[in-house]
């Protein structure tokens, strides 16, 4: 007997006392929790996102689409970044004012090459106001997961208000589980020393979020 059959057999014997219940899953129990907390208007939702991002030590900028290239260029210059990587589908306009050398993410590039990149700039899939979370889904303007992980400085652009939802339930509705997702809430951190939060371990130690309005 294979272990698969053995385990399934054990499960079925273990559940011998359980009454048969053929109700569809949606009717199996009530979901009495809220779809979102509070009734925020668009502006409040964006403000809450900014507040919660900042609370977990992300650096938040706000600008209009017309100022985006200059804002990004300013952030890269302030950090002294000499190289900046953008995923293949990134709007070329965004990096048009940057003085840093623009690098492309090639399929064959190694983690070592990525480790030498100063900054990475991406878009995002959705942002969650209540938790201060940015979600990347690997779309062409966000790139492979590794490019937002190995470099120490990540700039992520959120189109507000259309990419901002209030809550985790609303974010999951918008996302495609078939894509590899990365949920980011602030820069890399740890609570492993005396259960106190410290920023900055393996992921980008500086996370800058640009909330851009049309």
């Amino acid at each position, binding site marked *: 007997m294979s*272990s*698969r059959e053995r385990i399934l057999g*054990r499960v*079925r014997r273990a559940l011998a006392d359980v009454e048969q219940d053929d109700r569809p899953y949606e009717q199996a129990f009530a979901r009495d*929790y809220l779809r979102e907390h509070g009734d925020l208007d668009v502006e409040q939702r964006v403000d809450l996102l900014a507040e919660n991002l900042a609370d977990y030590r992300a650096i938040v900028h706000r600008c209009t689409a017309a100022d985006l290239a200059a804002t990004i260029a300013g952030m890269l210059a302030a950090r002294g970044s000499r190289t900046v990587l953008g995923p293949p589908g990134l709007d070329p306009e965004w990096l048009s004012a940057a003085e840093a050398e623009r690098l492309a993410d090639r399929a064959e590039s190694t983690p070592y090459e990525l480790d030498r990149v100063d900054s990475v700039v991406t878009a995002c899939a959705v942002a969650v106001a209540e938790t201060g979370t940015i979600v990347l889904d690997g779309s062409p303007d966000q790139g492979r997961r590794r490019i937002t992980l*190995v470099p120490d400085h990540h700039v992520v652009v959120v189109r507000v208000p259309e990419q901002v939802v209030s809550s985790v*339930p609303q974010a999951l509705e918008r996302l495609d589980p078939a894509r590899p997702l990365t949920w980011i809430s602030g820069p890399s951190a740890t609570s*492993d020393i005396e259960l106190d939060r410290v920023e900055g371990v*393996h992921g980008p130690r500086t996370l800058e979020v640009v909330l851009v309005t049309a």
Partner: protein
Amino acid sequence: MSGTFVGMPAFPEAAHEAVNDPTLRGNLRHATHTIRAKRAKAVTEVSDWAELREAGKQIKDHTLRHLDRYLLQVEESVTAAGGVVHWAADADEANRIVTRLVKETGESEVVKVKSMATQEIGLNEALEAEGIHAYETDLAELIVQLGKDRPSHILVPAIHRNRGEIRDIFAREMSEWGRPAPEGLTDTPAELAEAARLHLREKFLRAKVGISGANFMVAETGTLVVVESEGNGRMCLTLPQTLISVVGIEKIVPTWQDLEVFLQTLPRSSTAERMNPYTSTWTGTTDQDGPRTFHLVLLDNGRTDTLADEVGRQALRCIRCSACLNVCPVYERAGGHAYGSVYPGPIGAILSPQLRGIASDIDASLPYASSLCGACYEVCPVAIDIPEVLVHLRERVVEGGPVTREGNRVVLKPAKGHAAERAAMRAARWAFSRPGALRTGQRLASRTRRFHPRTLPGPGSAWSGTRDLPPVPAEPFRDWWQRTHGGKDGAK
């Protein structure tokens, strides 16, 4: 390497040393009190906490009640997404599967995301025996591995170490494993985190095989979820060419939507954050992004035996948040090592004796490692009634009875050393089923109360050594009730 738990003494002996170690007591008190207050605040922020908790319980219970169906669905959806599914009935089988998979890649080192399942099965030791080095990459796991120590907490395995001790371990041991600690390393947490970043980066960049567990597996989509803080998880899940995930069969949730409950309750319960810094989800493999090969090892290792226990099976709802450890007065004083398992604290006291059985001294003593205060139940985000299971397991230890071990029904004999307790309970049963005898006994006790000792003699002395005997009232309750018509006559 993390040490073994084989031959652990029973909990009271194991806890004795910890209770008398002022440094350990101080470290634990500081850490648990810090997180306790923060968790309470993070939970209050969410007005529907009770409803989220109830939904989490219902989702997990439903999954467990139909576990065979959902296991098959996970297998189908993970396979459809490009993953390879393996089934492991016990720790040995899981270790053999993982060892074989690593060897097939031709690699002799792996990077690991913190995973309770792989600790439970002793994977690092099994790999080491086959010449494969496993590098723990979670900061606390790194501290434990470098310190040749054992984990003492589910979330923060090095909670028993303070910053000074961590500094010493890094300064002394890092050079043995790779990049040495920076010169003049101090004990500020930021510097310690930086040292870990530098030490592990070379291992991440060259890693070809990653090993993880998972917090959740979604049956309908075949998606796995890892919740973490540092980015070491992302490194292990995305940079290697081969990813092997070892996941307990109880980690399934039926639908993608179900994550909306746990992604709200888990971070707030474990690190007291609105959301943890990083959560990764992946479904099979993705072209040009992340590992090219993905293996999922579904682990039983005592879980189906636990599932067979009608009262005890609720322990399988556990999402490993560790909130119960942080509020437990016993854990705070005894520390994690005394529990003799990778699962310490209240959840460990009900999980270990069920996963492993109660044959050993330590497992038979774990249901007693509690004051039954109920704080663990109150904070549990999936409402596991830990005190209920503790009492149930105590009964199993004292009375024996039917249990399931490795899929077979067996009948346990009553444990030794509980003879006086059993005799007392038998006497109580006799008296309570004979109203006349009970009345006579109670009146006799009331009339002789001036002569009652303050401690019990003989085998009862151990019990009354740390407790006051309840005072006997001047008049039995039933006599008072009859005399005063239930207090209606106004008489005292």
